[in-house]
């Protein structure tokens, strides 16, 4: 994992999970391949993950399928509607695992682990508290990304 400063202003292609003392952002830059007829190859996205948790921060490149973001969006929308339950996300290549556990009263606990394949020894586990106001914004950001990078069929 490369240590770097974490941008404070979100981009249009960025989804951010933030809260007290922590921030995880996934910024999608583009489809990995354009024009390929293959469903699998056509839906990989090039993305960058930046994590700031306590005094630790880092960023690394990641590949995420469009359908993985669709599933994350689905889970997060349902959890936000009910304000209960747990959102579980782990990308297919297991670089990034993330859970959002709603704890009632609109509070949520975000925990996860970054395991960039480019740096097998560089694993970062993190956890921080968030709430529905942050996560509602996260859902909007995720929706915007999916509009920009829809599942290609």
């Amino acid at each position, binding site marked *: 994992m490369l240590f770097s400063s974490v941008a404070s202003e979100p981009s249009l292609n960025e989804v951010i999970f933030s809260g007290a003392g922590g921030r995880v952002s996934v910024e999608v830059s583009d489809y990995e391949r354009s024009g390929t007829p293959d469903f*699998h190859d056509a839906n990989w996205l090039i993305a960058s993950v930046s994590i700031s948790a306590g005094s630790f921060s880092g960023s690394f490149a990641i*590949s995420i399928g469009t359908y993985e973001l669709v599933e994350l969006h689905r889970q997060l929308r349902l959890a936000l509607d009910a304000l209960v339950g747990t959102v579980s996300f782990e990308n*297919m*290549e297991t670089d990034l695992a993330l859970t959002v556990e709603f704890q009632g009263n609109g509070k949520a606990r975000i925990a996860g682990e970054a395991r960039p394949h*480019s740096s097998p020894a560089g694993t970062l586990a993190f956890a921080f508290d968030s709430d529905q106001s942050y996560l509602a914004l996260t859902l909007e950001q995720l929706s915007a990304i999916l509009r920009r990078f829809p599942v290609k069929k």
Partner: protein
Amino acid sequence: MTELFTGKERDAETGLDYFGARYMSAAQGRFTSPDPDNLGSIKSDPQSWNMYGYVRNNPLRFTDELGLNYSVCDTNGKNCADLTDSQYNDYLKSSSNIYQTAGGSLYSVNQDGSDTKVGSATYYNEKDVAGAAQIGASQLLINEFAKQAVLNAGFNLGTRGLFAGLSYGFRLYRASQAGEAAIAATPVGRLGSSFNAAGNNGEQLIGGRLYSGHALDRLQERGAVPSVVEDIISSGTRSPGRYPGTTEVKGANGTVILGGKLFGVAGAEKVITVIPK
């Protein structure tokens, strides 16, 4: 014997591919004996410590025709000399005041303590060089392979006469080593092109197995060979993938994600991605 991987002969009894100095086990993706003298190892490049590795564990990208090959060029990347491993090894042993940076540049240490860049040493791939020539490239440099050249080796090409009679036309001059760290940090690949750049591969059928372009990219980046994938698929534990139509196969050497039909989109089963250990 039959001709198989990279055109080398495969011993029918042992299943090993003959690479001149060493045998390579396709099943393991490794040479069966260490690189002589582990010439390529450098402190800053752990991958180079592996004396058994085949082409830095990137067989989809690189081949090693003779077991080892080096290209030594002038500071402009031209007037290159192609050397066998033994030639290069002899050359290094005969030199005394030269060292190589992790980026593959060769420097001499002057009497006043300053450094002079005298050229570059690149571990290269014969097929890739030929391919580069076809597309008009003057030279193919593979940074990671350059790291395998030599560490703290002597270099005095003009006066020691190691290459006397070979007439490679080197011109040695002084320069600074500043900035080499940045080059060393560049991932494996053609000079100036990150090895992990996406979109390099297309869908391919390898050994009867269909691979997505993304999967092939991953194999290259992570230094695994198709035989490793086959081993995982044949001996690993299968379970439904987390997305409809996908299958996850976990083996001792990593995980393979197979997919054929996702979200109602039909397609032949193929390797979607590979996560080697």
